[in-house]
C-alpha cells in the first residue's frame, strides 16, 4: 500500500442566509474540541490557515473551521441574486453576520473567533457587539481603526489602484508586499501574493470598505468590551503598516483585561507569511483558552 501525503483538512459547503440572501459558503475543518472560527483577510480566503490547520498542537484541542466569505475562495457569489448589477462593498453588519450565522448553523457552543487584518478588526467588533456568542476573540492585526495614511486615500483612490480595468489582479498580489516582513520566507510571501491574485474582481477593494471605513471603533466603545464575558487577545506584527503594534496597543490600553502581544519580525499576514514564527505567539493564547475551558 502506497503512502500518500495528505493534510488532515476536510471541506464542504453550507447554505447560510444573511440579510435575506442565501449564500453557498465553503468551509474547511480540522481537529476537535473547542470550536475555533478562522476569518480570512480582505480579498483572500481560508487557504491562509492551511498551516494552522495542520498544526497538531492546535488541532488536538480545537475544532478549526476556516470559512470563505461569499465572493471569496470557493464561496461563489449568491445564485439567483443580481450581484453583477451592483458594486460590492463589505459592511460591518454583514462581516459580523457571517461568523454568527455559520456558528448557529454548525451548532457551535460559544466558539473562539480568530481573524486577521479585516478579520482582526472583526474580532474586536464581535467582542464588543456579541460577547455572549464568543468565549474569546483573537484579533490578529486588529486596531480601533486602520492607519490614517491609508484611510485618507479614500474609496476612489482604493478602487483606482485595486479595482481598475487597466490593471490586472497580479498587481494586487504585488501590492501585498507592503504588508509583509523582510524576514518572512520568500515562498510564503509568494503564496500570500498568489492568493491575492486569485480573488474576484472588485472584491478586495470592496472588503476595504469595511477595513478602512466601516470598522471605526471609538476608544469609549472599546472600553465597553467586557473581557470577563468574552476575552480579547491581540497579536500584531512589527512590520504591519496598516495596523502597527502602536495602533493595537491603543486597543489594549482601552480594553481592561485584554492581552496584547507584539510580534517581532512578522508582518500583516503572520498565519501565512511565517507560520512557524506566528505559532510561538499563538499557542500560548490557545493554551490559556483551553485551560479556561478545562476549569469550567
Amino acid at each position: 500500500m502506497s503512502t500518500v501525503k495528505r493534510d488532515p483538512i476536510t471541506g464542504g459547503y453550507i447554505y447560510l442566509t444573511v440579510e435575506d440572501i442565501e449564500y453557498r459558503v465553503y468551509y474547511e475543518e480540522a481537529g476537535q474540541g473547542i470550536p475555533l472560527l478562522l476569518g480570512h483577510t480582505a480579498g483572500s480566503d481560508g487557504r491562509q490557515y492551511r498551516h494552522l490547520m495542520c498544526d497538531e498542537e492546535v488541532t488536538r484541542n480545537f475544532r478549526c473551521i476556516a470559512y470563505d466569505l461569499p465572493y471569496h475562495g470557493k464561496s461563489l457569489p449568491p445564485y439567483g441574486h443580481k450581484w453583477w448589477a451592483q458594486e460590492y462593498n463589505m459592511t460591518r453588519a454583514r462581516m459580523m453576520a457571517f461568523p454568527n450565522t455559520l456558528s448557529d448553523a454548525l451548532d457551535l457552543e460559544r466558539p473562539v473567533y480568530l481573524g486577521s487584518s479585516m478579520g482582526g478588526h472583526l474580532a474586536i467588533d464581535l467582542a464588543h457587539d456579541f460577547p455572549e456568542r464568543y468565549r474569546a476573540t483573537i484579533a490578529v492585526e486588529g486596531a480601533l481603526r486602520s492607519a490614517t495614511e491609508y484611510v485618507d486615500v479614500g474609496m476612489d483612490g482604493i478602487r483606482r489602484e485595486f479595482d481598475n480595468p487597466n490593471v490586472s489582479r497580479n498587481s494586487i498580489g504585488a501590492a501585498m508586499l507592503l504588508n509583509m516582513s523582510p524576514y518572512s520566507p520568500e515562498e510564503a510571501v509568494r503564496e500570500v501574493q498568489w492568493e491575492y491574485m486569485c480573488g474576484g474582481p472588485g472584491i478586495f477593494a470592496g472588503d476595504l470598505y469595511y477595513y478602512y471605513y466601516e470598522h471605526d471603533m471609538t476608544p469609549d466603545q472599546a472600553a465597553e468590551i467586557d473581557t470577563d464575558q468574552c476575552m480579547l487577545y491581540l497579536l500584531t506584527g512589527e512590520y504591519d503598516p496598516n495596523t502597527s503594534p502602536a495602533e493595537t496597543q491603543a486597543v489594549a490600553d482601552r480594553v481592561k483585561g485584554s492581552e496584547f502581544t507584539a510580534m517581532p519580525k512578522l508582518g500583516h499576514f503572520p498565519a501565512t507569511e511565517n507560520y512557524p514564527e506566528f505559532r510561538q505567539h499563538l499557542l500560548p493564547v490557545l493554551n490559556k483558552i483551553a485551560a479556561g475551558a478545562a476549569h469550567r
Partner: protein
Amino acid sequence: MASIHLASSITHAMDDPEFSREMRYFDGRLKIGAYGEETVAEFHDGKLAQVAVEDTPDADCKIIIRGTAELWDNLLARYPVPFYQCLQTCNIKHGLEMSTTNETYAYLPALNRLVQILRADKNEGS
C-alpha cells in the same frame, strides 16, 4: 553605504526572468530618481530600448519613482526596518514619490522585483 548604478542594474535586470516577464508589453519611460541622479529607462513593447542618466521631463514618463539618498539606503538595506520594506510603504510612510498612473499600478510586480535586484546589487559582498 555605497550607492547604486541604476542604468547597469536595469540592464542587468532584463536578464532576470521575472523582471523581464513582468515588464511585458510596456511602452514608455520609467524614471527613477536616486542619489542625486535621474535614470530613465525607455521600453518598447516590453523590451529595453535604452537606459541612461538624463533630464527627461516627468510628463514624458509613465512611471516615476523618486526619493532621497537616505530613503533609498533604508529601502535597499538587506533587512529594511519598519516601514521601509517596499516601494509602497516608503511612499505612504516616508514620502517616496511614486506616480499614480495606471502603468505604475500595472507594473508594480516588475517594480517590486527591480527593488529586490537593486537590493541584491547593493548588498552584494557587504
